[in-house]
C-alpha cells in the first residue's frame, strides 16, 4: 500500500453536536448540521448559548468563556482576577443551574462518526501542582476548572473564591481552527480598524469591499487611519475626500465586521449572533449571497441566529436562485424544554418563505 505521508485532510465541518450541563442546556442534541446553519427560537431559548458551545468546541480552549462574559456584559472586575483591568468571567454562569461545586461539569462533543471532538470542563479540588503554580490568594473554597480538550492532557485553571475564573496561563490547543464570533454589540472605531487590518491588502479584501457595496454601491476603496482615534474610512466614487465608515450608518459597520470575520475564518467557523442586525430587508438577500458563496469558497462553517422573517426570506431567495446550495443549508430551532433542536431543510426554508408557514 502506498501512503502519501501527508496527514489526512482535516475535515472541518461539524455534523452533529451534543451539549450537557452547559449554560441553559441540561442536555441538547443538534443533528443535521450543514455548511450554513440558521438558528432560531424564542427569546432565552438558548440560541446564543448554542453559539458559545460551538465556539468552545471549535476553539478547544476555555478562553471563549471570558469572551462570552464580555459580550454578555457579565465581566467581573475583581482585584484577584489575573487581569483586573479587563475583568474575567464568573464561572458559575457557564454551568447549568449556575452552580460550581466540586464535580459540576459541562461537556460539548461531536457525535456520530469521524472528526470526533470534545471539550469538557469540570470543577475539581486544586491539585498540588496547580497550588504550586497559583498559590491560593483568595478566601473561599479552593477549586479549579479542569479543562479537557480532545486528546490533550487536562489543564487546571484556578477559580477565585467568588467564582471568577483566573485565566493565568492558558493551554494552547494543538490543532487550532479559526473561530470568529460576531456578537450583537456595535463594533466601531479602533476595533473595526483592527478587523480591517487583518484583511487589508490580502486577496480577501475584495470580498469585504463587495460586502460594503451591498448597502453603498459607490464604495471604491477602504482604509484604516487615524481620525481622533483609529477608524475605518471609505472613498466613494467621485467623492473629493475619504469619509468615516461609521458616518454611512450602522449597517455599513455591521457588514464590515461580518465580512472581515467571515474571510478570517477560512477553514474554520463563523458564529453570528443576530445576523440581520442593522440590515434593511432589501440588503438581506445580498448579505446571504455573500455569506453563502464566501463560506463555500473559503471552507467556513457558519452558524447564525435570527429572529427575523425577512432574514429567512432573504436566505430563501438565494436558495431559489441557486438550487445547488439547498443541501448546504439548514435551520435549527432551539426550543426550551426540548433536548433536541428541530431541523428544517433548505427545501423547507424555501417553502416556508413561499407559503408563509411559520418555522421560527
Amino acid at each position, binding site marked *: 500500500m502506498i501512503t502519501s505521508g501527508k496527514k489526512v485532510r482535516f475535515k472541518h465541518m461539524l455534523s452533529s453536536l451534543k451539549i450537557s450541563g452547559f449554560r441553559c442546556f441540561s442536555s441538547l442534541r443538534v443533528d443535521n448540521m450543514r455548511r450554513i446553519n440558521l438558528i432560531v427560537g*424564542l427569546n432565552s431559548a438558548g440560541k446564543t448559548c448554542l453559539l458559545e458551545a460551538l465556539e468552545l468546541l471549535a476553539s478547544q480552549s476555555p478562553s471563549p468563556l471570558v469572551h462570552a462574559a464580555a459580550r454578555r456584559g457579565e465581566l467581573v472586575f475583581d482585584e484577584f482576577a489575573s487581569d483586573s483591568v479587563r475583568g474575567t468571567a464568573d464561572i458559575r454562569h457557564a454551568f447549568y443551574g449556575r452552580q460550581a461545586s466540586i464535580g459540576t461539569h459541562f461537556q460539548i462533543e461531536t457525535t456520530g462518526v469521524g472528526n470526533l471532538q470534545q471539550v469538557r470542563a469540570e470543577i475539581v479540588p486544586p491539585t498540588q501542582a496547580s497550588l504550586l503554580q497559583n498559590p491560593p490568594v483568595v478566601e473561599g473554597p479552593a477549586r479549579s476548572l479542569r479543562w479537557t480538550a480532545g486528546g490533550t492532557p487536562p489543564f487546571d485553571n484556578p477559580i477565585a473564591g467568588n467564582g471568577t475564573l483566573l485565566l493565568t496561563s492558558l493551554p494552547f490547543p494543538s490543532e487550532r481552527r479559526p473561530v470568529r464570533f460576531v456578537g450583537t454589540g456595535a463594533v466601531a472605531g479602533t476595533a473595526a480598524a483592527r478587523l480591517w487590518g487583518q484583511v487589508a491588502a490580502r486577496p480577501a479584501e475584495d470580498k469585504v469591499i463587495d460586502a460594503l457595496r451591498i448597502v453603498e454601491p459607490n464604495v471604491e476603496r477602504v482604509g484604516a487611519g487615524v481620525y481622533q482615534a483609529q477608524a475605518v474610512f471609505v472613498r466613494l466614487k467621485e467623492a473629493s475626500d475619504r469619509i468615516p465608515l461609521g458616518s454611512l450608518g450602522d449597517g455599513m459597520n455591521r457588514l464590515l465586521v461580518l465580512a472581515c470575520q467571515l474571510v478570517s475564518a477560512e477553514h474554520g467557523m463563523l458564529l453570528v449572533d443576530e445576523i440581520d442586525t442593522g440590515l434593511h430587508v432589501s440588503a438581506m438577500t445580498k448579505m446571504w449571497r455573500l455569506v453563502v458563496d464566501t463560506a463555500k469558497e473559503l471552507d467556513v462553517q457558519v452558524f447564525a441566529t435570527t429572529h427575523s422573517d425577512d432574514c429567512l426570506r432573504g436566505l430563501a431567495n438565494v436558495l431559489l436562485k441557486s438550487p445547488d446550495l439547498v443541501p448546504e443549508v439548514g435551520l435549527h430551532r432551539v426550543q426550551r424544554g426540548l433536548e433536541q433542536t428541530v431541523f428544517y431543510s433548505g427545501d423547507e426554508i424555501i*417553502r416556508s418563505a413561499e407559503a408563509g*408557514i411559520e*418555522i421560527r
Partner: protein
Amino acid sequence: MASTASRSQRQLIVEGPDDEHVVIHVMRKMRPTWDQEPRNWGGFEVKSAGGDTQAIKDFGIAAKAEAGSIGLMLDADDQSGKHVADRWNQVRTTLTQLVQPFPDAIPTEGWIGNTTLGLRVGVWIMPNNQVDGGLEAFLTPFVPAADDSWVFAQTVIEQAKKTYNVPYPAHYAPKARLHTWLAWRKEAGRPYGRAIKCGDLIPNGAVVTQFADWFERLFITDQRGLA
C-alpha cells in the same frame, strides 16, 4: 421593517381555492355569532397549498412549529392513493416523528392531536372521514332537498357523457353534477364558496355539524381545556 413578532399560527392547510372558500363560508354560516372576518377568529387563516401533495408537505413543515394549531383538510377520492385510508397513511408518514401514539384510523368526528413539540394538529378528510367523495360529497347535502333539478342534473351529465362523450372522468362526476346544477341558479355558476354565501347551497346535515365542531375544537377552544 423586519417582522420579528413571534406568532403562534392557527392555520388550516387545504388543497385548493375551492376548499379555502368553502371552509370560510361554511364557518360563517355555522357560527354566525363569530366575527365575520375569519382573521378575527384568533389570527386564523385558511391556506390553499396548490394541490394535495403540496398540502401534505406544507402540513409536515407547519407541524414542526413550537406553538399554535395547524389543520389539514384533504379530499378522499375514489382513486388509487386518494382513498380515506391512503390519506390517513400519508398523514401518518408525515407526522410519524411528531405524534405518538398515532391512531390507526381517523375518527369519524375528525382527528385532533398534540405533537411532542407542543403544537395542536388536526386532520379532516372530505367528506366525512369515512367514505370517498371529496368536497362535492360534503356539499351535496347543501342542495335544498325539495329541488328536483338536482336529480335532473345527474341525468344531464350522464346524457352528455353518453351522447357527446364529454371528457370528464368518472371520479369527477359529482363535481360535474354540482357545477351543472349551480349553472342553473339565479346568478349562474357561482363558485362553491359564493354559492354558500348567497344561499344557493345551505349548510345542512350531520356532517357539516361535525366539521364545524372539529374546526372549533382545533382552533378556537382553549388548548389547555382538551386532552
